[in-house]
């Protein structure tokens, strides 16, 4: 079983990110369970989305406290609280970097990857929605999912220009991390 925790603010597309990631695992024949946890029910409030995935149907319904992977959609959240709490010893964090917010140093075996996902999104989508770039980065950093499956998931979710832009965004996020490895 693998557990992924996404940190974002309400309105930044964390649920879509979890749904896309879950669908990629579904395409790969796994049994994902993607779910949100809202804080205060308003735009901008910190919230989490989660994906728990296994080779058999997931029964555990609690939130995720010891993730294998963490995705930080909004780096300003790292100022307020520890987005990496409980991250596994060999865990991987993927951060949407932001000027003025320091990337923390984690333990030796934990890996941190950061990328300018909002800039990538601005370039392709025209809006700072870095979610698909982050998922591209996730595919490269964790080697858990196939980029082609991610593209397939984006094709199912978006249509027209948004589809094309998000595929480019995912591809660039993927390449950005791949070139760092």
């Amino acid at each position, binding site marked *: 079983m693998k557990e992924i925790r996404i940190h974002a603010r309400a309105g930044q597309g964390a649920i879509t990110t979890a*749904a896309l990631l*879950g669908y990629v695992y579904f395409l790969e024949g796994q049994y994902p369970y993607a779910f*949100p946890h*809202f804080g205060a029910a308003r735009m901008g409030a910190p919230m989490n989305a989660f994906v728990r995935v296994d080779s058999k149907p997931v*029964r555990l319904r609690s939130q995720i406290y010891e993730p294998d992977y963490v995705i930080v959609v909004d780096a300003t959240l790292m100022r307020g609280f520890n987005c990496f709490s409980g991250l596994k010893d060999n865990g991987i964090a993927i951060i949407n970097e932001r000027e003025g917010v320091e990337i923390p140093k984690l333990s030796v075996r934990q890996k941190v990857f950061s990328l300018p996902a909002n800039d990538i999104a601005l370039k392709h989508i025209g809006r700072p929605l870095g979610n698909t770039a982050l998922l591209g980065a996730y595919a490269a950093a964790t080697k858990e999912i196939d980029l082609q499956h991610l593209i397939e998931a984006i094709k199912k979710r978006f249509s027209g220009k948004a589809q094309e832009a998000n595929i480019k965004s995912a591809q660039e996020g993927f390449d950005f991390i791949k070139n760092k490895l």
Partner: protein
Amino acid sequence: MKEFLEGSKAVAEIVKLCKPGVISAYPITPQTHIVEELAQMVANRELNSQFINVESEHSAASVVLGAVAGGVRAYTATSSQGLFYMAEVLFNIAGMRLPLVMACANRAISAPINIWNDQQDSVSLRDCGWIQLFAEDIQEAADLHLIAYKLTEDKSIMLPVMVCMDGFILTHGIETVDMPSQEQVDKFLPAYKPLYKLDPENPITMGPLVDPVYYMEARYAIQETMVKNVLTLIPKITADFSKVFGRAYNGLVEEYRTKDAERVILAMGSVCGTIKEVIDELRAKGKKVGLLKLTAYRPFPVQEIYEALKDIPKVAVLDRALSLGSYAPLASETKAVFFGKKKKPEVISSFVVGLGGRDITKDSIKEIFRLLTAKERACEFIDLKPELLKENYE
């Protein structure tokens, strides 16, 4: 076909296959994505149904009451405060013996205002004459809707069914669901043929004033239908369901690793998944633990609970709702099953967990098994934060 679907979306797709003629809902928090999806389907002309947007849940319930009284299959969904606002009408729907299916996305009740999951809403309405079925996962929530329509429209039942699914955990969760085809659904659920309806050509009165000469018999008839007909029919319907769709449910209770168990938890809803996970872990360490999952809360399957638990030494009843000032609801009813019986558990302890969205972790369940000792516990709150209980008005 297997699909990766949000709980609310899966339910909406199933309801679409059941072809309700009328859907009514009030679009405000706490509503569900279920009716949002259905409204979209009607607007897209994928579903030939009348979607009636109303000004309150009281009206939503009244509209579907009217629709079924007029001889049409109908549907609505609600949650929390919305369910409470419907309460008066819900008693009427049951009292008028109208077949209806409604989803309740289980959420906490104000005050304090809380949008998150527990089961206080539907549990508080246990006495309104509706059959209540609780789902463990999204597949079951979808399947229970099919079972519910078949049940409610049976001429020996004619009582409404509430399909209860945990808010957020199942309504907003996304997982793999095996969706049936229209042909399968049509085979299982024939078109609705009303036993009686409002018709200007053949006028009848429904829900009239009934004086003391008749009232008790009307209530008695509901009680008899509940405890006799419904409890007998559900397993027959789930057997038919299994033949068409290939998934087996008992529909009343489900025993999980209880055969040689020394300690068993009784629970309902999505927490049963977490409990099963903990049971497998503890069983691997040689601990004899099990789960009795309750699907039917109304009618309460007294005989099935008795058979499943009579030889279990220690039973923990897990409530996600309260009856403030008394024992927890599910616990007191479980104890009533065994009162005066020769064979019964030595201990029936009561635990309250996961109110207002407090997360229920594997540790919460392990704590319940740890506290399930010879000392019987009443209404023991799990994961309580004592530091928040200190009062200071200075």
